[in-house]
């Protein structure tokens, strides 16, 4: 258990400082904001006549419409900031601002090049649809100061080319741009200059730091378990109940003196579930050889057939009955889906096997196979990772290996380090998931409860709800 818990804790502990890491630019932005803020809203292309540059249009924001007769007022942005977009290839700038607008307020941007203002290619967006700082935690941290601030990305401007057609020109890296924000309200609009900033190219995407650390950790866990499994192939895996059902079914087939039918699914050998099915076939064959009953394996893929013959032959050898092995019982039928089903169903009706094993990957034909099998009264054991087919197996078969149980059964039997190790590694990942969802729920519930009015006031409990957020 400690083996599971330790990497888990490591993940958590390592992931936490990440939040601090991601928050740094936010602190920077917050500090810079007042300094660079609001250059005087002068030199607009067409100064909005008669628009008082004073108070933001708060009444408009409430009613959503201007009363008839009054002149529309362009709302004024505050705390404006122009900055290079962090973690990018140096082709975009960000405009950050606070603005209380109406439902119809639109935002645009202009860029000054060689003395001319060009419109940035961004259809004047509705203010309401712009992202806020809180929406972009990768850039601004999880608790950005001023989370309501709007963020506008500009990376292109429209220019008229030699042919007189509008042409969209992208920003270049390491280039200085002078930008202004344009607020449009109805017929009125007004520009606000934001100053000049240089575009910069970055070499690390800070927003992805959490996934980088998680994936590296996961890789380390998986690889170390695979190597551990190479040294010690007896790593613990729980009993898979389906495998016991397999033995029972073969036993019954022997009692009744009827054959056993095994199908490896319809996928080629490169699929994991087919490999698992072939591994389980080895176990089935050994039992069958011990009990001296018959084994039929109709195949859909010639390569799978060859491998199955090999596996069954070995199993008979190990059971000490190589003479009982008959190659013609493991045969290729056809590689046409429906013809294959029809032939297998024919075999089921004719031979009436006492036990059917349907393991591997199946498509729509799963239903037809399982139905025919159940109508002949056979014990059926199925296993697949085809989620869409599993319901049909559960309702028509006596025992079903669900999804990963099939891989686990295969790893349990074959003890192959690759399968076993990665299964154990994935278990660590699952333990991590379980821990995180339980902890996260506890934290956020506590955070919610203490944040309620009347609960423990006078203390900032907010950090609890944010404890796990850097992970996301």
């Amino acid at each position: 258990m400690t083996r599971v818990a330790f990497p888990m804790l490591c993940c958590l502990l390592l992931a936490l400082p990440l939040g601090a890491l991601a928050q740094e630019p936010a602190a920077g932005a917050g500090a810079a904001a007042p300094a660079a803020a609001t250059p005087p809203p002068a030199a607009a292309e067409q100064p909005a006549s008669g628009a008082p540059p004073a108070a933001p249009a708060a009444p408009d924001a409430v009613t959503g419409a201007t009363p008839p007769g009054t002149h529309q007022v362009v709302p004024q942005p505050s705390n404006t900031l122009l900055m290079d977009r962090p973690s990018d290839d140096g082709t975009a700038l960000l405009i950050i601002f606070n603005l209380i607008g109406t439902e119809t307020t639109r935002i645009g941007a202009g860029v000054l090049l060689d003395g001319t203002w060009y419109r940035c290619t961004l259809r004047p967006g509705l203010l309401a649809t712009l992202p806020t700082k809180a929406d972009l935690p990768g850039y601004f941290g999880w608790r950005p100061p001023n989370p309501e601030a709007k963020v506008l990305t500009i990376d292109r401007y429209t220019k008229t080319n030699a042919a007189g057609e509008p042409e969209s020109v992208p920003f270049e890296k390491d280039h200085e741009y002078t930008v202004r924000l344009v607020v449009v309200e109805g017929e009125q609009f007004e520009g606000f200059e934001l100053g000049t900033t240089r575009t910069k190219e970055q070499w690390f995407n800070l927003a992805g730091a959490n996934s980088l650390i998680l994936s590296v950790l996961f890789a380390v866990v998986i690889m170390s378990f695979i190597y551990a499994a190479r040294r010690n192939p007896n790593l613990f895996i729980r009993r898979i109940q389906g495998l016991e059902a397999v033995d029972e079914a073969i036993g019954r087939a022997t009692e009744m003196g009827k054959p056993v039918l095994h199908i490896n699914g319809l996928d080629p050998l490169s699929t994991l579930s087919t490999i698992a099915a072939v591994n389980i076939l080895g176990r089935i064959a050994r039992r069958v050889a011990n009990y001296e009953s018959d084994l039929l394996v109709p195949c859909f893929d010639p390569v799978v057939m060859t491998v199955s013959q090999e596996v069954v032959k070995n199993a008979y050898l190990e059971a000490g009955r190589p003479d009982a092995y008959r190659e013609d019982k493991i045969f290729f039928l056809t590689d046409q889906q429906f013809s294959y089903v029809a032939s297998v169903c024919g075999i089921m009706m004719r031979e009436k096997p006492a036990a059917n094993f349907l393991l591997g990957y199946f498509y729509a034909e799963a239903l037809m196979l399982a139905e025919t099998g159940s109508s002949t009264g056979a014990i059926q054991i199925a296993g697949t990772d085809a989620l869409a087919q599993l319901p049909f197996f559960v309702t028509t078969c006596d025992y079903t290996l669900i999804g990963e149980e099939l891989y686990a059964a295969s790893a349990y039997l074959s003890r192959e380090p690759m399968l076993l190790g990665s299964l154990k590694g994935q278990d660590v990942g699952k333990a991590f998931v379980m821990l995180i969802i339980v902890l996260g729920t506890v934290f956020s519930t506590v955070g919610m409860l203490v944040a309620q009015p009347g609960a423990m006031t006078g203390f900032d409990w907010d950090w609890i709800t944010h404890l796990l957020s850097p992970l996301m």
Partner: protein
Amino acid sequence: MQFLKRRLPVIIAFCAGMVFWVQYYVPSQASQDLLETFTASWAIILFGAAFILGVLSAIEHHWTKITLKKAGYGYSLVALLVFGTMILSGWFPAQPSIRLGGAAPTLSWGMLAATLCLLIGIVSAVSYLLGGNGERRYSRGMTALVFLILGAVGAFVIQPLASGYMLLWKVSNPAFIGQTIKPDSMFMWFFDHCFVPLDSTMFSLLAFYIASAAFRAFRARSFEATALLISGCLVMIGRVPLGEQLILIPKGVLVSWYTAYLHLVNLPVPPDLATTLADLNITSIAGWILNSPNSAAQRGILLGVILSQVAISLRIMFGIERTYMGGGE
């Protein structure tokens, strides 16, 4: 040689995997260009090649079936003939039009014949190369030789002289941009009237099988299967129009219950209660099943699947999983 055959692919897979893993975290322009070159051009060409491989091996499979006169080789012959027809009708810049009485076919039939010869030649050459022995192999080799010569002469000598086309390319007008499968071509006619009905009928057969299995095989044979069938039936009824008509508790009753409850605990009754509540019918139950327990369980499965997906990717990168390399030494 052993290095080239066994080690090099593993090294390539490791390097490629690492490069694109790291690339995700590098936003600079050079890294974006790398991603663009690989995904927008290289990988797409490689996928095309893999497809060609698939087609060639399918042709080879049916071709050997025909040449060896295996059981059911007639069907293979039909499949290959249909395949040839489809290729002839769609592979050429100028396609025969199906509109009877409309524009005359613009395709040169000589060119079709030449291409057909080349095709047969290539296929038999492939099956010759694939080995086998004795008389059959000899006859395949001869077939390949004859058809390849015929096709080459037709396509590269007679046709360009006669029509200005060399196989697929118009010799006189090299830039044949703007040529593609025409909407009213024979190719699209085949697609609409042969391919579509066959493909869509194949899986509609299953409706009948499901109905018969519903009667004969879907048994509540265990606790699990019972839970499955109950939720399945609720979803089946709930997600067709009928589910809305099967009302369990009408809205009025719900509103009065809720109002009574609010009075009991001394809370104000919201004025829009009548509009926020709806009838409790099978559809709403099915909706709850899908959104709540189904979503939870599927998410549990999904998280597990993602972990195993990542594990497989890692195994491929580190050369532990090599099924993509196929068999052989």
